[in-house]
Structure formats: structure tokens, C-alpha cells
């Protein structure tokens, strides 16, 4: 395209319009026009096709419109009065056109730059192509030459051999003749007669021999036809658009993945012509077998855009992805392989392993993914007293393990859920658990239960059955009590005050209290230094009570048997207090500095049952 023409055309239009303007206005528009190069800080430059220099634009002085008003002799422009409005609108039009021109010129500039780039690239390709062709040809030449040399050598060798053989034959003949002559000249007639016959035979035989006088090799050189077909192909392909170069695949963007899909983007390294892309992907398995026949299958997607969303994937899995670009010439080399990861599955909160107290809650969950994830996010929201849901009020991020101790406020209700996080992003939210910070709440630790203990479905009542289990049927694990028919509770490891109640009946002999987590599993509650408990013994005539620690108890009588025992633990004051909760009657207080966290403990000394009640706000009298 000829910029000058375009320019000229446009300029012509503008110059026409400018003629109609007021002269005074004209000067300003003229300036505006002349100033057109300046606003963007660019100067218009001439486009030169004949040189190899990069595009430069020179100011074109020869196309500026002249102030034509005076020359044309139109005097209308000098009449101010009627033209005010027209002048303004024309000026606006002009300004618009000027802006258009600027844009257009800018656009052209870009096009020219692109064209130059493309041109340069084409040149490069061409050069390379021809270089390749030349290289190939010279190689052929070398090969050919070597071939000929070798042939020559072998021919010469065989001829030389022939020569040598002939020489030898000559020598042999000569010798024979000499011998014959000698014999002929021999004076001894007797000797002569003896030897002459064999000699004559030999000579006759020798004469019968045919002499092969043909050359052992031909004098001609075999010249096979040169196979230059590939050179021809290369020559042909010079004119063709080159195959694209390898695309560049982007690293994974955060939050672009879901559990089963990945959003992959890539870009072209250069401005190649591309018809379509092919994206390959395969899962990265943990244990790749040495035998490549068992390698995971790779899948392929054909897309026209430079991005693609791959679906139907496994969750929390790593995938290897690479992409090729294809055009009419061929397929590009593959891009580098990128590793993407799908988002994990949501975790599952383990309800029976969560505990709480007025100031805190301990939440435990299962990862929900077979492969490890990077971390977890715990989200909590407070539910209103009416039970209306509110938005997430707090998020705890970068939780490294499958449990979290959260600070909370007393007397509220919270909804807590967890997400798993990996490079791909966070999973969906797990099902929420409701935590109430009224009183202390805990479940019983089933894996500490003596085999003879069974538990109700809700997990708060324990039974010691009547039937005698044979020793062999009892499955003792590492953590179970083996003698005392006991079980521990999973109290939240937070110091401060805790209160719970135990419901018993009139007949059951029991022990209730607290113990350190590592209390002897083959011991009896209260008989050692790691447990404190209230013990009830039933005799036919009365009830007996002991408050045991280290096997020692004070001597006490209690006249009304408590059926609901309140247990109040105060870490800071170092007290463990027992009450008859129905009567608000204080029974006994242990004084002890608990150097570690303790767990509630319960045991049944004869067949019977007891029920744990918790989540109860501690009555005032329990902590005075």
C-alpha cells in the first residue's frame, strides 16, 4: 500500500474542508494539522521498500495542505457572522478526522512493523532452507567421491594382482624353457632319454593351458544414479509455510482447576500460522513401573483456541500435559511438559473425634484423598441463637494436619467445615459439624474400652454385660484396659474448667473420675498415681464410697446415694470435685496440680451401666 496515496487522498479531503473555514480558525486547524504528528510523540516517517533498514518515518513536508483560502479567491470564508456554528461543527469534524488519521497511521505503523518481522522471518527460513539444501548436496558429493575412490582402488588392486600373476606365469614358462634347453644340450644320452619324456609331457601340457588374457576387471566405473529426491523435496518446501515451532505451555493458574477438570493455557512462541492445536495429557502415577507397556494412557484433545478445559479427570491427581501446533506443513515439536493438579476432594469431619469446651473446639477429619494434599482450611461461622445461618466469620488457613484446635467464645453455636488445598486450589467444603460452646463436650474413646464393655449407639452409655466372656474371646489391643473394665473420655486438651455428669443407678458399682492419658492399662482406676476417682461399692446392707488416688481414700460416709454425679475439673486451681448433682451436695475434692492433660475415666466393677452427660453449663456452686 502506498501511504502517500492514502495520505494524499485523505489530505485532499481535509484540505477541501479546511477551505471552507474562517481564516482565523484555519490557522489553528492548520496548526492542529501540522501538530498531528506531535500528540502521540510520534513523527510520521516514510516507508521505504527498497532498503533493508527498519522502518523509519520521515516527516512528509510535501503533503501539507496550503492555506488555500486566499489563493482560491473565495471570499466567503472571510465572512464571520453566519459561519460561527458551521465553523464549530466543521472544526469538530476535522478533529474527529484527525483522530481517525492518527489511529489509522498508528495501525499502519503496526502493520508495517509486523510485515517487516514476518519478512525477516521468511528470510531467515529461506536462508536456512537453502543452507540445508547446500549442505545436503555437498554431503552427497562427498559420499559419491568417496565411493569412486574406493572403486578405483579396488580395480587397481585387482589389475595389479593380474599383473603379478602374469609375471609369475612368464617366469614359470621361462624356467621351463630353460630347463628344456638344458636337457636338449645335455651330452649324456642316457640321461637325456630318461628325462626327456617327462619334460616333453610337461611342455605339451603347458602348451595346452589356456592363457586367460582377459582383464580381471572392467575398465568402466559404475555410476549409480544419484538420489537427490530429498534435496528436491527440500527445494520444494522452501516455498511453503514452515511448520510451527513448539508452543509454550503455561504453568497452572491458581484456582483454575476443579476436582475433575483443569483449565490449561498456552501460547505461541512466535507468530506462526497454526490451524489447530492438539493437547495431550496423561495422569502421573506414583509408582511408574519400569515396564513402559503399563504406562498410563495418554489422551488427546484438538482445539483451535490457545486454551482448553480438560474434564473427566481424577481428583487430587497430577497430570502431565503438552501441546503441539499443526498447520498444512506439519506438526510442531511438542511443548515442554507441564504438571497440573486437580483440586482435592473435600475432607470428611470425624464427628466422634471432635470435642469442645466453652473456650475452644478440637476438630478432626479424614483427608478424603488417597494422595497427600498441601494443607487444609478450616472455616467457621456462628449460627444465630434462632438458628439462622450467617456467613463464614473466620477461616484458618495452612492447617498442616488433619486436626485443628480453634479458639471460640462461650455460650455460642458454630458451624465448622473444612477444605483440602493443593496447588490446584481448594476443594469444596466438607459437610459441616455443629459445635456448641455450652459446657464441655466429649465422646468416649472406644479404643480404650475393656473388651467386656459395650457402648450404646449414641456413644454415651456403657454397659458391662452379665455373660462371662472367655479370655480368648476378648480382643485386647494396645490401648485397651485389661483388668479394670474401664474406658477413657476424649476431653479437649485445654486447661481451665470442665464439668460433666454421670448417671448411675442404685446397684451398679462404678468408678468415675479422671486419669492421665498414659494411665496404666493393666491397673485399676484410683489404685495408681495417674488416676483419681470416686468409687461406689455395694454391700447387701449399705453403700460404701471411696475417693481413690494412689490406692488411698479418706474415710467417708454418704447417707444419700447419688444417682447423678457432677464432676468438676479445674486445672488452674488443681482441683477435682465430685457432687451429688441432684442435691447440689458437695461430696469430695481432690487437690492436685495436674502436670499434663487428663481424661475423664469411667469403669464398672460389676455388671451394670452408666451414662455420661456433657455439654452442660457448670452450675455456679461447682466452682466456688
Amino acid at each position, binding site marked *: 500500500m502506498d501511504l502517500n496515496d492514502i495520505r494524499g487522498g485523505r489530505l485532499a479531503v481535509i484540505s477541501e474542508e479546511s477551505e471552507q473555514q474562517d481564516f482565523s480558525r484555519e490557522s489553528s486547524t492548520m496548526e492542529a494539522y501540522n501538530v498531528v504528528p506531535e500528540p502521540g510523540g510520534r513523527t510520521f516517517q516514510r516507508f521505504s521498500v527498497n532498503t533493508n533498514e527498519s522502518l523509519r518515518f520521515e516527516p512528509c513536508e510535501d503533503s501539507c495542505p496550503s492555506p488555500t483560502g486566499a489563493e482560491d479567491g473565495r471570499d466567503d470564508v472571510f465572512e464571520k457572522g453566519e459561519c460561527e456554528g458551521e465553523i464549530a461543527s466543521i472544526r469538530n469534524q476535522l478533529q474527529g478526522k484527525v483522530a481517525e488519521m492518527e489511529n489509522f497511521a498508528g495501525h499502519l505503523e503496526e502493520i508495517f512493523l509486523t510485515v517487516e518481522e514476518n519478512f525477516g522471518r521468511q528470510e531467515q527460513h529461506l536462508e536456512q532452507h537453502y543452507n540445508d539444501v547446500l549442505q545436503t548436496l555437498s554431503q552427497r558429493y562427498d559420499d559419491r567421491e568417496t565411493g569412486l575412490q574406493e572403486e578405483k582402488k579396488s580395480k587397481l588392486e585387482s589389475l595389479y594382482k593380474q599383473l603379478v600373476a602374469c609375471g609369475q606365469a612368464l617366469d614359470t614358462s621361462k624356467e621351463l624353457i630353460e630347463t628344456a634347453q638344458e636337457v636338449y644340450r645335455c651330452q649324456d644320452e642316457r640321461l637325456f632319454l630318461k628325462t626327456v619324456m617327462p619334460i616333453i609331457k610337461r611342455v605339451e601340457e603347458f602348451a595346452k593351458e589356456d592363457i586367460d588374457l582377459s582383464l580381471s576387471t572392467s575398465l568402466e566405473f559404475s555410476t549409480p544414479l544419484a538420489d537427490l529426491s530429498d534435496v528436491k523435496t527440500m527445494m520444494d518446501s522452501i516455498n511453503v509455510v514452515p511448520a510451527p515451532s513448539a508452543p509454550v505451555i503455561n504453568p497452572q493458574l491458581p484456582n483454575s482447576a476443579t476436582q475433575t477438570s483443569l483449565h490449561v493455557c498456552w501460547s505461541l512462541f512466535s507468530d506462526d500460522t497454526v490451524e489447530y492445536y492438539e493437547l495431550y495429557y496423561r495422569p502421573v502415577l506414583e509408582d511408574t513401573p519400569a515396564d513402559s507397556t503399563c504406562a498410563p494412557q495418554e489422551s488427546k484433545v484438538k482445539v483451535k483456541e490457545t486454551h482448553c478445559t480438560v474434564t473427566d479427570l481424577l481428583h487430587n491427581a497430577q497430570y502431565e500435559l503438552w501441546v503441539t501446533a499443526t498447520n498444512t506443513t506439519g506438526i510442531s515439536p511438542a511443548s515442554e511438559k507441564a504438571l497440573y493438579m486437580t483440586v482435592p476432594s473435600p475432607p470428611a469431619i470425624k464427628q466422634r473425634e471432635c470435642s469442645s469446651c466453652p473456650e475452644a473446639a478440637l476438630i478432626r477429619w479424614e483427608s478424603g484423598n488417597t494422595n497427600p494434599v498441601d494443607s487444609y482450611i478450616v472455616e467457621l461461622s456462628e449460627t444465630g441463637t434462632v438458628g439462622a445461618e450467617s456467613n463464614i466469620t473466620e477461616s484458618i488457613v495452612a492447617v498442616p494436619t488433619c486436626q485443628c484446635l480453634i479458639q471460640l467464645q462461650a455460650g455460642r453455636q458454630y458451624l465448622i467445615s473444612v477444605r483440602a488445598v493443593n496447588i490446584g486450589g481448594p476443594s469444596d467444603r466438607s459437610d459441616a459439624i455443629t459445635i456448641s460452646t455450652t459446657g464441655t463436650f466429649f465422646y468416649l474413646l472406644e479404643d480404650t474400652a475393656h473388651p467386656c464393655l459395650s457402648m450404646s449407639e449414641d456413644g454415651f452409655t456403657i454397659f458391662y454385660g452379665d455373660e462371662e466372656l472367655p479370655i480368648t474371646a476378648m480382643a485386647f489391643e494396645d490401648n485397651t484396659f485389661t483388668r479394670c473394665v474401664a474406658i477413657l473420655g476424649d476431653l479437649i486438651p485445654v486447661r481451665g474448667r470442665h464439668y460433666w455428669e454421670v448417671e448411675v443407678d442404685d446397684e451398679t458399682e462404678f468408678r468415675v473420675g479422671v486419669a492421665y492419658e498414659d494411665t496404666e492399662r493393666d491397673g485399676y482406676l484410683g489404685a495408681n498415681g495417674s488416676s483419681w476417682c470416686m468409687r461406689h461399692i455395694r454391700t447387701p446392707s*449399705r453403700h460404701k464410697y471411696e475417693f481413690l488416688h494412689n490406692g488411698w481414700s*479418706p*474415710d*467417708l*460416709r*454418704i*447417707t*444419700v446415694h447419688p444417682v447423678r454425679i457432677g464432676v468438676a475439673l479445674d486445672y488452674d486451681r488443681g482441683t477435682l470435685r465430685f457432687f*451429688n448433682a441432684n*442435691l*447440689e*451436695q*458437695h*461430696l*469430695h475434692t481432690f487437690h492436685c496440680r495436674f502436670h499434663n492433660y487428663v481424661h475423664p475415666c469411667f469403669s464398672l466393677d460389676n455388671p451394670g451401666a452408666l451414662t455420661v452427660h456433657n455439654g452442660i453449663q457448670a452450675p*455456679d*456452686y461447682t466452682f*466456688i
Partner: protein
Amino acid sequence: MALTQVSSNKCAGGFQKVFEHDSTELKCKMKFAIYLPPKAETDKCPVLYWLSGLTCTEQNFITKAGSQLAAAEHGIIVVAPDTSPRGCNIEGEDESWDFGTGAGFYVNATQDPWKTNYRMYSYVTEELPKLINANFSTDPDRMSISGHSMGGHGALICALKNPGKYKAYDATVLAASYSGPQLDILIDQGRDDQFLSASQLLPDNLIAVCSEKKIPVVFRLQPGYDHSYFFIYSFINDHIKHHAKYLNA
């Protein structure tokens, strides 16, 4: 009724005072000790009545039992009356240590020549509370009663014979016929108490009766302890705390 202050000592942030007055029930001058905790300066406080044992006066408890700190902490007024009328000049009243002077047993005598003066039951349950409530910053609805030895017995009978009057109670033997609002009784007994080994104290009977009548009692046998004020001193805090639970509720 006119009260005369006999002594006043600052103690544990409050004041340990002794007053004297003319008793209408006992027809003589009677002294009583009263401990006013710091809280009494600004608020109405509940009152714990302490009945001392044989041969004691109003002095023994306040000088030997060490109750003032706990009383101050829980904001409780402690009143410790004398154990019998004094100076009535009744014949035979000073003959034995466990009868007559210093041995009022917190009952009203029914026979002459005792019945005019020896009305400790009425004194402790009627006259003294009225006097205290009229002259000090008390909450008349919150009263409890406690005691040692003869006083322990006295506390029990006062409580059991006045259902609902006292908010927290201590040892007695008359539980068998009790019917009234629920009690909560705390009893401490020194194991080496000579009266226990001499079978003058019979806690098992009390316990048996209370078990049967379902009167809540916690009875503690304290090894090594005897009958003295050293024993009282050691456990008075637990008792004041026991009372405070109900008085301050």
C-alpha cells in the same frame, strides 16, 4: 436492745468484735462475738451462727479456730454466742464441767432451778437472731448454723426443729423425725477424738438414721485429728465454704 461493744480488733480485712447485752431469755448479761467481713461495710451479708462446745465462752472460737479469713473471703458474718447463761448464781451450776455453766446444751431447761435462766435454745433460735438482724447489716433470710461438740449437737437440733429456718446445717441426732425442706449436712469427726473412742460420740447412729430418712449427709472421718481447736482450725474453711454455697447462692 442496747448493745455495748466490749472489744474490737481488725482482722482479715474486717472486724472481730465482742458485744454485751441484757438477755431477756436468759435473764442475765450475755456476751457474744461477731465477725464482720469487709463486705459488711457496703452490703447486707448472710450470717453463720457458731455454737461452741462444753466449757467454752465466746472467746475460744474467735481466737483459736481461724475462721476469719474464710469468712472474709466469702463475705459471711459469723456470730459466736456464749455456751450458757453466766453469773446467775444458781446452786450447783459450777460443780461439773459438763453440766451447768458452760454446758447449756442449747436446750431449754424444763426443771427448776434451771428453767428460768437455762433457755439456750430460745436464745440461739429467737433472741439472738433478732438482736443481730436489728443491729447489724445482715440479710435476715440467709442464716445457717454450725458448731463443735456440744455445739454441733446444738446446731443439729436447732436446724431439725426449725425446718426451713436455717439454710445449711451441721450434725445432729434428731434426724429421724425430721420432715421439712432438704438439708445438706457436713460432719467432720477426728478419728483420734477421745470422745469418739469413749463412745460418747455416736456418729454411726446418725448416719444410719440419715441414710434411712434420706437426709443428705457427708461424714468425714479425719485420721490423726482429735477433739481440740486444732482440729476445728484445720477444717473450718471447708465448713465455711459449705455454708457459703447456700448463703451466697
